[in-house]
């Protein structure tokens, strides 16, 4: 019996986006207006697009996830820039922000195009999609989780 977990995936990516955005809030956003504008625009786009789709929440929203990945890449680049600019930590490996940046930039860059072209590949070349999923998405997801685990072990910077 096939159980559809796509609703859980949709919920997971939204929650992940909210958590990560609030994590980066004080680190890269200079004012709250910009932060809440970005947060509300992107989350509204994802929710509306998910609900408007044929199967609604029962189908994983790849385009929405693709937008999330693009946002994560921007967050990570801004985070790296903030690390280099502020120079609060001398040794990067001691900074949780560095590890979060590393994890999410690897994950997002590996997943961005894959989410964007997932539907196309499902229709034209399922074997290639499986290969790409195994070679890029799964390893980058594992790397992300390892980097997050390392980051969580570090002391929170002032």
């Amino acid at each position: 019996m096939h159980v559809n977990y796509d609703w859980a995936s949709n919920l997971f990516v939204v929650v992940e986006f909210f958590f990560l955005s609030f994590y980066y809030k004080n680190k890269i956003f200079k004012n709250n207006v910009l932060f809440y504008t970005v947060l509300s625009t992107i989350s509204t786009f994802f929710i509306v697009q998910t609900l408007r789709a044929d199967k609604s929440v029962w189908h994983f929203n790849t385009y929405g996830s693709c937008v999330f990945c693009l946002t994560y890449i921007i967050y990570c680049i801004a985070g790296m820039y903030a690390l280099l600019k502020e120079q609060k930590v001398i040794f990067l490996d001691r900074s949780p922000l560095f590890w979060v940046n590393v994890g999410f930039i690897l994950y997002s860059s590996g997943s961005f195009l894959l989410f964007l072209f997932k539907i196309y590949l499902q229709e034209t070349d399922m074997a290639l999609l499986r290969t790409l999923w195994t070679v890029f998405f799964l390893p980058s997801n594992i790397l992300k989780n390892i980097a997050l685990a390392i980051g969580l072990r570090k002391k929170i910077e002032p």
Partner: protein
Amino acid sequence: MNHLSILIVIGIMAMMVLAFGLILFVIMYQRRIIAHQMELKNVNAQKELELVQASIQSEEEERMRIASELHDDVGATLASARLFLYKDKNSQFDEKIINQSKILLDESITKIRNISHKLQPATLQHLGLELSLQALVETLNKSEIMSATHVVLQPLPRVADNVELAVYRVSQEIIANILKHAKATSVTLETGVNEAGITILFTHDGAGLTQELYEMQIYKKGSTGLKNIVNRLKSINATIHFYVDDFYFFRALITIPFASTSKSEPI
């Protein structure tokens, strides 16, 4: 596999490479910043050392100037006055007053000579550190405040003037501290040479310092004597270690590495 599929694969690979490239760039950039900061720190430390050396040198020059003024000018004037008083035996002044004046003048001359010797230890320049420390110990014994002993484990070689002067001043400061704060009744000074360099060990039976206490004291407001010790030893790259031995005697060990004992040009 069609063209778009190939492009997707290339695109994903390119993005991964870019991500790795960005991480590498950040790491390399930070390394450059660390190297730059280390370089700045070294330059600052060097400048600080030069400033300490310069201030010590100017202090010594001032001491020498005052000492020679006292010895050559004030001392000579007082000696002349003394001569006049001795010569004028049949004057109309009361002989008792003249004798009293002679005693006072003699005392003044002796005091000035002592101050002059303290400011500019002539033995240090002519006879070296070991004999100067011996003289310091003898002065202590003469004062009868405490008993002092100098033990020569190995004869000390002659080293650069600034090193000898710094060690001598630090020894003076340590003995002054032992007298003032430790309330010791005896002190032993051992001088020797080992593979680490020249060593001078002070042992006393008073209430002295431990290394922990010393490190706390030097960061406190005041403690000028200890700060002087730190600065003078820093200027010659020497170290000091305070500890208590098995018989509860307090000890202070000064180690002057051979690298800093060579004669060099003053700043």
